């Protein structure tokens, strides 16, 4: 077991800065996701931790030891690319034993270690089976087992679920989460899928253009995104982001494209905002309530209803602006109908449009 620490790590490929001044602490036993769109630097970061890329600048520590100059196989890490990477034609036992044989372990030690690992993964009853005959969930455990047998201090996982279909991904997520809660090996997991990151990680590092945007718990990323990028990237359906302008007088207002909101009750968040300042107001689709027309914060018209079974995504037009609402339970609202929108101003996220930062 070990913690992982990156101190001001940078990496460029030619002219392109893949990772810029990245500092990150991954506590011992935790599950951390690096999340971002393709090209954000998350895989490069993982590869630097694994020792497959060398940082241009900065320090990488694993278990307190500076590993910048330590070759990959001596870093005591296991990198898992995809859960299908198991050897066909070999039994589960042979699959698990393979990394130990390569390291020339004694037979007795191998048997003991493989059995121990199989117990943890609950695949002890499968050891004699051909690995290819297993279910996908079992195969995944075998692949993980092969990474686990040599008892690495850190697991590095690069988009392991990407090639699976949606249903299987949901099953595998739960498997992985259960497994980690049992073995508690420090895990760093790279993904572009915010749902995977939100449901698996203790903490998530959101990256964009090589820069760490926010490193926080899933709950904080969701409820207190520190900038516009994080606000737009985390959460599905995405947060409504509405441009507006501060109007200060006796009272404070926000002028949007086609409508205005009174903003006196924003808990002082606009105290320092200048008259005329351009803002972006963010509100999550699940934080808006709809009622039949009359009253409410704003009036709109239903444009589209997308049923998801137990809930629905409803697009509401307010003048020329579209606001998305996530409505739980049965939707007694029809397309074309006028509706009133309600939202608690505590649930509004305010960002400076110019810098993107949260107010």
């Amino acid at each position, binding site marked *: 077991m070990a913690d992982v620490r990156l101190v001001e790590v940078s990496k460029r490929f030619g002219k392109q800065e893949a990772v810029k001044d990245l500092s990150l602490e991954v506590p011992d036993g935790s599950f951390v996701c690096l999340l971002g769109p393709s090209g954000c630097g998350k895989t490069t970061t993982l590869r630097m931790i694994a020792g497959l890329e060398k940082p241009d600048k900065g320090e990488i520590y694993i278990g307190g030891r500076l590993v910048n100059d330590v070759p990959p196989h001596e870093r005591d890490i296991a990198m898992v690319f995809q859960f299908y990477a198991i050897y066909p034609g070999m039994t589960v036992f042979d699959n698990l034993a393979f990394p130990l044989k390569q390291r020339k372990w004694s037979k007795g030690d191998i048997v003991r270690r493989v059995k121990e690992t199989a117990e943890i993964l609950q695949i002890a009853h499968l050891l004699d089976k051909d690995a290819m005959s297993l279910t996908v969930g079992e195969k995944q455990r075998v692949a993980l087992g092969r990474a686990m047998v040599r008892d690495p201090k850190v697991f590095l996982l690069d988009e392991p679920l990407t090639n699976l279909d949606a249903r299987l991904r949901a099953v595998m997520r739960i498997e992985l989460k259960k497994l980690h809660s049992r073995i508690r090996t420090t895990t760093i997991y790279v993904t572009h*899928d915010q749902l995977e990151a939100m449901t698996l990680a203790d903490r998530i590092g959101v990256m964009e253009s090589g820069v760490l945007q926010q490193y926080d718990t899933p709950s904080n990323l969701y409820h207190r995104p520190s900038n516009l990028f994080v606000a737009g990237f*985390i959460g599905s359906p995405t947060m409504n982001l509405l441009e507006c302008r501060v109007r200060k007088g006796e009272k404070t207002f926000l002028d949007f494209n086609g409508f205005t909101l009174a903003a006196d009750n924003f808990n002082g968040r606009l105290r320092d905002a200048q008259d005329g300042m351009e803002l972006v107001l963010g509100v999550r689709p699940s934080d808006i309530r709809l009622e039949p027309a009359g009253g409410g914060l704003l009036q709109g018209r239903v444009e589209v209803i997308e049923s998801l079974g137990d809930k629905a995504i409803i697009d509401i037009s307010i003048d020329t602006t579209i606001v998305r609402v996530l409505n739980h339970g049965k939707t007694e609202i029809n*397309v074309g109908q006028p509706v009133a929108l309600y939202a608690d101003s505590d649930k509004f996220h305010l960002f400076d449009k110019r810098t993107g930062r949260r107010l």
Partner: protein
Amino acid sequence: MARVFLNHVTKKYGRQTAVEDLTIEVRDGEFVALFGPPGAGKTSILRMIAGLEDVTSGEIWIGDRVVNNLSPAVRDVAMVFQSFALYPTKTVFENLAFPLKKRKMPANEIEKRVKEIANILNISHLLDKKPGTLSGGERQRVALGRAMVRKPQLFLFDEPLTNLDAKLRLHMRAELKKLQREMGQTAIFSTPDDIEAISMADRIAVLDRGRLVQYDTVENVYERPNSLYVASNIGSPKINTVEGDLLLDGDNRFLDLGFTRIDLSHFGEVLKGFEGRKLVLGVRPHEIVISQRKTSDGSFMGRVEVVEDTGAEAHATVMVDSTYLVVLIPPGMRINMGDEVWLYLDPNRLNIFDKSTGKALI
């Protein structure tokens, strides 16, 4: 505008039956999804309607005529394929104008029509650009525009959102739905994604290896699936399924799940004759009542194995005996991994299937 009617349509490729005795009616102006895994026959059906494949037997009606022997060009159908091919060296305008030029429409009419379509699709500002410089969503809209510009009476979309990334897919879903409604044209799309099907379609045809399993409104397919197949393929997170035995106790029938017994007497005669048979209970995650204390006689205890919180909602995977149940956690309730919780199944909100046939009994 047109009604589409497939009358006992079968399609065989050699000895393999791709579509078997399919009868389905799509009403004028309706938006219908063909849903099923790969190999379900979705694409074959679309291709037969478009005229790209012959039927082995049966009739295809578009509007008030049988089109079996009509070539694709005269069927007045536009098909948009999964990998939409735009001409890379032509501008967006030229891409949109192409189908009209082929039909020798006068230049001023072409211009008028292209501008009208571009306006509907919100791509007017892109008309002078080349496809290579557009985003995925913009390219998708141009491809749609090219299908729309000659105002066909029927649209066919083959997995229209499959090649887009997750964010864009979500965006295009709403856009496509809105577009279909505004245009008012009959449209049929295929998809392997259940959420795409239920979020966009008016009605869904659920297919399994070439056979139609259920053809119904979104609400009915979700809430009253006619089979275990439909129940377990529609809805995310997936419906929970638990096997049990139907027991007769006096005049009352119970479903014995091992960890709990559910009184099904109120269903009366429906279950008569199924005593002693294996049944399968289906219950959706949001229909299971979860609480931290025992709330009613019928509730049973389980242990929370995993909590998945996406921010907008959280689900618990609860182990009861050796059965896993996924349960929606109501907003505000704090539940952690390892907690012991009580679950309750409302007998009025259950789906029950015969295990041997997979058919819905309730």
